[in-house]
């Protein structure tokens, strides 16, 4: 349930689901996000779900904070109980050419690379949110002993398809972009395809993700 609704500026609701970042809280956020989307409420422009918050921005010409807050508070979320979540397999190549920060990961985590890869490929990830750059999924949770800080100096250009680790999360760079995550491999899969008219992003909040190791050859021939 929403713990508290505040205003963020004069044209957005800031819905707080609690301090903890865990699947249970995030499931609540996603449940609200999906239900509100289905309701097509007049004046809502955008919904931004994250770990434990949902920001609802609206058109101040059409509605206001007080009206919308009351609508959200009175929504019967249970009636839309069904969450349609996908299970997705992401191919990833961990060849030296792509596993840019494996050495740093070995040093910081004090675990050898075989064990790091083993932990990574055995993990079933959960998508908490997508965003920052278009389509980028925030996937958790890495085990405690796999958690590492961002790079001290972020890369100016992280290659498209790079899979990075930071703290409890893995992510995928859907575009070439600046960034500071520790890059473990690269996927040839288009995780965000802006040429698609609908559903340009492969991974949505609530989805389950596993990574599957592919060879350098499979990586380079993937899109043929």
């Amino acid at each position, binding site marked *: 349930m929403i713990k508290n609704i505040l205003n963020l*500026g004069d044209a957005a609701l800031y819905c707080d689901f609690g301090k903890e970042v865990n699947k249970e809280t995030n499931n609540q956020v996603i449940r609200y996000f999906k239900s509100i989307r289905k309701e097509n409420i007049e004046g809502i422009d*955008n919904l*931004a779900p*994250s770990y434990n918050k949902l920001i609802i921005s609206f058109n101040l010409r059409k509605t206001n904070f007080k009206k919308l807050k009351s609508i959200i508070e009175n929504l019967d979320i249970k009636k839309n109980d069904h969450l349609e979540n996908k299970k997705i397999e992401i191919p990833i190549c961990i060849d030296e050419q792509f596993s840019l920060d494996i050495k740093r990961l070995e040093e910081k985590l004090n675990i050898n690379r075989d064990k790091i890869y083993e932990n990574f490929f055995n993990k079933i990830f959960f998508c908490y949110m997508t*965003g920052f*750059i278009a389509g980028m999924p925030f996937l958790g949770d890495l085990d405690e002993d796999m958690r590492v800080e961002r790079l001290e100096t972020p890369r100016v250009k992280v290659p498209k398809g790079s899979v990075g680790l930071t703290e409890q999360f893995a992510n995928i760079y859907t575009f070439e972009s600046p960034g500071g995550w520790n890059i473990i491999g690269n996927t040839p899969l288009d995780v965000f395809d802006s040429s698609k008219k609908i559903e*340009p992003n492969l991974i949505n909040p609530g989805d389950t993700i596993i990574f599957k190791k592919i060879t350098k050859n499979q990586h380079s021939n993937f899109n043929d």
Partner: protein
Amino acid sequence: MTKNYFKVIRPGINSTFQDQGRKNLYHIGVPFSGAMDSRNYLLSNKLCGNKEDYPVLEFAYQGPLLKYFGDKIVIAITGEVNFTIKKKDKLINGTCYQSFILDNGDELDIVSTNKSVYGYLSISGKFDLKYQWNSFSTNTKANIGANDGKKLELNQKINIFDIKKNLNIKKLNYTNIKIEKIRILRGTNFDYFSEKGKKDFSEKEFMVSKLSDRMGMRLEGSKIENNFDTNIKSEGLIKGVIQVPADGNPIIMLSDHGTIGGYPKIGVVISADYDKLVQLTPGSKIKFKEVNLSDAETLFKLYEMETQNLISQI
């Protein structure tokens, strides 16, 4: 069929097609985008007799130089813009908020925005653009929207269709007003900042830095002291949010902002002041003034009435 088009002789610094923005995609990381200065966008369309949601060409600082080929067409420019129209036999000094007729072979030289950032060009016809996810707005960082998600490029053609037969010249008396104070509402992390930090934020003057673009406006001045935590769990953002990273220099999120951020939010610019905020050039000095939610809502109503009143005068 007659072919009508502009040829881009000089693309300008950041010339992009924009409309009212792209809704319902924050959750996958696609920002709202759209014309930065909404009032000037609406006025430019109205001056060409267009519907309010037509795409227009937005430019910043130095605009494009365009050579026109085709049937007579009406154009209008809004903002504070220096521009000329070079015809076969004469050179016309352009005036904003007034429409002009372009003939085949005329050159429209959008020299610069004067003490402001953004200006708008609209035409009495339709730019031939790709509609993506219910908007023409271009986001050059993610290559989304019209013109393959890119800025105008040298020598490219901008095709035009459906030129209106009616060549009415319209004019509006309007002067853009500068604001001295940006009005804000308290952000959700206001209490992360020390008493000194809060005081500096509300009393000190800040300068708009050169590192400002359609994504955000960086400010320089007093470093705002945080005595709680310089990071928050990443969460959604909206335009107008003022984040303060660990270095203490505020950043205001603008229309192409990243959809998720992890810095504390000290304030949010009120909707009524957004159009004027985005027009502040690097080097401008600004101060913040806190208002409450009901004042912010009233101020927006007044601003919107004023905009509608201007539109009705055209």
